[in-house]
């Protein structure tokens, strides 16, 4: 350690041939992050992602709030997927406090989580479409997302930040005749997302644009620890819902989608295919759900965990979402660490973008299923 590495700003030598491009943070194609690119002509020779523009210190904040008041804060990193991000927290706290969730609540949790996954994926897909200059593919998913937002709003009372899951169940039961509305919306939604194939997924221009770009081999995908759709597009069959089923996912009838190619096209197709499976799960859960019963275990005012730690994980819209909760016998967690899919897929970004053309930046970047706010926490 003779040479001290300074954190922060560093001045760099400028080459005549190489141009440095700051893609972000004020750039229509960057999201809340900066990608420092060095381009030689049209080729990217160096890529350095610089997240952190929306870092909120969620992990630090969680150490100061008790197990219930953490709920509205912890869903903030991904408000479009707020049920799924609360899921590992609730599972972990239930394990800490030794709570048993009522059966009906488990099914409703699964329904809410799958609706939320579709809502997130539609939003992601919309941005993917507009990144590729396809404005219809922005408007259609964002419009059709409204169907499920409407359902979630009937269910939870809020359109995006639901605060629906609590340790020990869910906040409230669904309104009467929810099942019929849900089934109708899910069927129409499935019909709509099938139509995306014509203009987007089977579109020869899109295929020629994204096929064979940013190829992530199976070995690299495992080595870099990617997760979710990125991993499954590289030919690794890994889905927490199948591998380590939580709540009632064991009883659900669905398949995981695995593609071998590992390119941007496969990575962008996996979430779309997953939405069909989500529709299957919702229909299945609606059928198998007990028609009545309690949905929440009553908690003491300030529940305290033991002197232990848990690590629970679920499959979110962006891959495995794990929460490591260390408890020290206080009402607050001693340490809460979120291991999020966005952050883990970000590790693959320099690997994928180096050597690509500049025109491949948007499809490769957004097909990583990266949500800047979640990665920053």
């Amino acid at each position, binding site marked *: 350690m003779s040479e001290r590495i300074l954190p922060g700003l560093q001045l760099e030598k400028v080459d005549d041939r190489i141009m440095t491009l700051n893609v972000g943070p004020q750039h229509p194609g960057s999201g809340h992050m900066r990608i420092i690119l060095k381009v030689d002509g049209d080729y990217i020779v160096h890529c350095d992602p610089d997240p952190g523009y929306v870092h909120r210190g969620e992990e630090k904040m969680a150490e100061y709030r008790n197990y219930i008041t953490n709920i509205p804060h912890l869903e903030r990193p991904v408000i479009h997927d707020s049920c799924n991000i609360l899921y590992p927290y609730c599972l972990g706290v239930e394990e800490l406090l030794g709570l048993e969730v009522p059966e009906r609540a488990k099914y409703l949790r699964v329904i809410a989580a799958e609706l939320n996954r579709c809502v997130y994926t539609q939003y992601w897909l919309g941005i993917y479409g507009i990144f590729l200059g396809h404005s*219809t593919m922005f408007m259609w998913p964002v419009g059709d997302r409204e169907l499920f937002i409407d359902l979630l709003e*009937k269910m939870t*009372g809020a359109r995006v930040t639901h605060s629906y899951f609590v340790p020990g169940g869910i906040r*409230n039961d669904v*309104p009467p005749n929810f099942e019929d509305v849900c089934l109708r919306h899910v069927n129409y939604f499935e019909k709509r997302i099938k139509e995306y194939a014509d203009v987007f997924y089977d579109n020869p221009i899109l295929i020629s644009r994204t096929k064979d770009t940013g190829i992530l081999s199976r070995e690299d995908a495992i080595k870099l620890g990617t997760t979710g759709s990125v991993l499954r597009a590289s030919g690794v069959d890994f889905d927490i819902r199948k591998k380590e089923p939580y709540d009632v996912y064991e009883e659900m009838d669905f398949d995981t989608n695995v593609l071998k190619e590992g390119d941007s096209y496969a990575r962008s197709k996996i979430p779309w295919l997953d939405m069909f499976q989500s529709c299957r799960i919702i229909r299945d859960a609606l059928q198998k759900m007990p028609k009545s019963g309690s949905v*929440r275990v009553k908690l003491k005012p300030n529940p305290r965990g033991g002197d232990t730690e848990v690590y629970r994980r679920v499959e979110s819209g962006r891959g495995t979402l794990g929460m490591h909760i260390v408890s020290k016998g206080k009402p607050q967690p001693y340490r809460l660490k979120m291991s999020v899919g966005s952050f883990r897929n970000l590790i693959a970004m320099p690997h994928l973008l180096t050597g690509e053309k500049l025109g491949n930046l948007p499809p490769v970047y957004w097909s990583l299923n990266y949500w800047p706010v979640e990665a920053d926490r």
Partner: protein
Amino acid sequence: MGTASGIIRALNSGIKHIATKRFTLRYPEQKLKFAGDGYQYDPTSGVGIAGYKGRHILYHDKCTGCNLCSIACEDIAEAIAMPKVDEQWKHNKKAIMPQIDYGKCVFCGLCVDACPFYALYMTNDYELSSFTKEGLIYTPAQLQVKPQVQQDAEIQIDERGAKHG
């Protein structure tokens, strides 16, 4: 020839959708209908009742000024203060009631869960914008008012697509 047929399929799908129903909710003229009268909570069973989490409604005849909603909000948004009110209630000797700052509130509804006396619920009213920051602070007297809402648009699905109507 796969390229040509793909291009023709895409163009055909585009032309077909020109004749599909428009899905847009025309907001100020139409307002979306919600389930129920707003989020409520039953402290005896410990389970909420589904409804929209909008502006709160405070029943002065039930509020005891126990501070529980304010304590619940302390770690979340710090939106609830407990000022003195100019009223005489047998069950509220201190005469303090919640006053909510909607510039801070995140509409999580955990204050409703905290109220053990059926005094604080939420309503379907979400049009709270104001020209000043002070206008966003709702006093107990303002929270007492039952909102007048006209929300009747619902998503209707038929063969030719979905629309709000």
